[in-house]
């Protein structure tokens, strides 16, 4: 059953990574109403950043892969670098996209950024080795006295632990006064402005926090799979996570858990067990068609997801002596 154990532990790692993505997007879209159609580039930059600071100095154009700024940082520094890279990219992109503009324009601009980023990385080979991508990223802490299987599960546990920690942290943030301000901004932008909330600053905060979480998820992913290339971050990947939070529930962290469990696992992993049909690659196309249809169906039937956001009603505080 070793193959099964390996497979399940891999699924757990993917679940943890997708959970981080779901949390990030839910904070941005579910709470703040920022439609980040370029989410995947923040995960990608985290993955690239973590890869180049673990791969060691680049051998230049002569070696089999070239990249900028090679370094050999010990675990867990690459993850911090990944999160920082996500945050920095978010600050740069946010500087022109988080200003006050129509939300549909904003989303279109972010989608354009995502489409162009991939063209640039593919064309500019010295940056991150172009469309071949980076390979041979070493796994962290391999000296630990663990069997291959033990290491697998230890890594899965580590990803889950980080996912859980971020989950609790972001849920706490969302329930804080700051989180309430975010929802006010999402639902009634004018009223929120009238109350003195700085809309642009709040959007920037959400965007940068989300970017950092995305970068972290990319770092965790690249340290696990050991390679990263433009194939891994097509614009459509963003929509798997969006579909997950649409299915699960927008603005509800339990819904995010449910959606992340259902969508990437059931619709992208289970088809691996189905018999191969047609020519190689047809199954992949069909998977994406199903994701797209599921996405449209969710918007039609349950726009707020299976576990919708709970309504907060204004009611008087219970008096102390009654409790």
């Amino acid at each position, binding site marked *: 059953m070793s193959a099964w154990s390996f497979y399940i532990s891999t699924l757990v790692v993917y679940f943890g990574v997708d959970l981080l993505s779901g949390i990030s997007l839910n904070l941005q879209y579910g709470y703040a109403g920022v*439609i980040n*159609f370029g989410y995947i580039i923040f995960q990608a930059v985290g993955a690239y950043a973590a890869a180049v600071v673990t791969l060691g100095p680049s051998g230049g154009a002569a070696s089999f892969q070239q990249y900028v700024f090679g370094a050999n940082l010990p675990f867990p520094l690459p993850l911090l670098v990944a999160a920082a890279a996500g945050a920095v990219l978010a600050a740069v992109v946010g500087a*022109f*996209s988080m*200003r*006050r*503009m*129509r*939300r*549909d*324009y904003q*989303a*279109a*601009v972010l*989608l*354009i*950024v995502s*489409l*162009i980023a991939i*063209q*640039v990385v593919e*064309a*500019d080979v010295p940056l991150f080795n172009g469309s071949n991508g980076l390979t041979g990223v070493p796994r962290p802490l391999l000296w630990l006295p663990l069997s291959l299987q033990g290491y697998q599960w230890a890594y899965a546990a580590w990803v889950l632990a980080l996912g859980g920690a971020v989950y609790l942290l972001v849920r706490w943030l969302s329930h804080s006064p700051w989180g309430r301000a975010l929802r006010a901004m999402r639902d*009634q*932008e*004018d*009223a929120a402005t009238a109350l003195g909330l700085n809309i642009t600053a709040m959007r920037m905060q959400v965007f940068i926090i989300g970017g950092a979480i995305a970068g972290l998820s990319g770092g965790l992913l690249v340290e696990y799979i050991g390679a990263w290339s433009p194939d891994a971050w097509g*614009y*459509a990947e963003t*929509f798997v996570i*969006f579909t997950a939070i649409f299915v699960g529930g927008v603005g509800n962290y339990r819904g995010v858990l449910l959606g992340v469990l259902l969508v990437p696992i059931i619709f992208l992993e289970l088809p691996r067990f189905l018999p191969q049909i047609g*020519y190689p*690659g*047809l199954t992949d*196309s*069909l998977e*994406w*068609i199903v*994701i*797209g*249809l599921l*996405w*449209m169906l969710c*918007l*039609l039937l349950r*726009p707020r997801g299976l576990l919708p956001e709970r309504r907060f009603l204004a009611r008087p505080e219970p008096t102390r002596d009654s409790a």
Partner: protein
Amino acid sequence: MWATLVSAIAFGVVLASIIAIAAMGFTIQFGLTNVLNLSFGSIMTVGAFAAYLGLEQGINAWYGLVVGGLTGAVVTLVLGRGVFRLYARRGAKLFEMMMVTLGLGLVIDYTVQAISRNNVYQFTVLQAAPLRFGPIIVTPTQLIVIALGAAIFLALEGLLRFSRIGKALRAMAAEPSLARSCGIRTGQVVIVTWLLSGFLCGLAGVVYIINSQSVGYTTGQDFLPLVVAAAILGGVGSPGGAAAAALLMGVVTQVVAAFGSAEYSTVAGFGILVVVLLTRPSSVLSRGSAETRLTI
């Protein structure tokens, strides 16, 4: 130096003609229906593949343009009346509708991928010896692309300015409820909008592959950033603005490719949009709670 610049500008005008055809369709559709249609690129791909299949059947390349345009028109109308209206009736707002169009784009793209077996197909028509005008070397195909872009721009401006349906279209884009109470048949105008913008979309797809000489399932989606950027830059709902923005972006893209690095030429085109977002944000300001409504 000068020769490089002049020929880069010439290539820019060719690219601009293609962007302009698509961006004019996009901006008419967006300006009137308020649907920011991100499946536009996918429908371009469908139009392009329709022309490819037509050519395989042995039809003339000129009819290929018509086949692509008509395919785009029919597909857009079916999607507009069938899919988008369904969501609008269920109370979808602007950005929900945009998400619907994205999911739809995903479905169309990967259906095309499944059918085309993920191959890129050669599309070679109108091959002829290049012509030389001083420093500029252009192929007759490129001249035709420029002429087509200019002709469509003039035809569209004429239609919108002088014809009855064009005036109705502009009136409705400005204020749908007022147009309706003036006796304009808004339902018909919407149908015309879907057909017209879809035709331009499919046509742009064919013109694009005539120029690039290959077609694959990502053809339209790769081109979409330039189209949407030109439409937003030119001011939504204004074909003239879209054409001007397309010209600017086409020329800047090619000049950067000639003098700087080819990798960053698209980024430079997009950079113009970013500069505009930073310096003249009034064109894209949110109107707060008084949000624009869908008219489909």
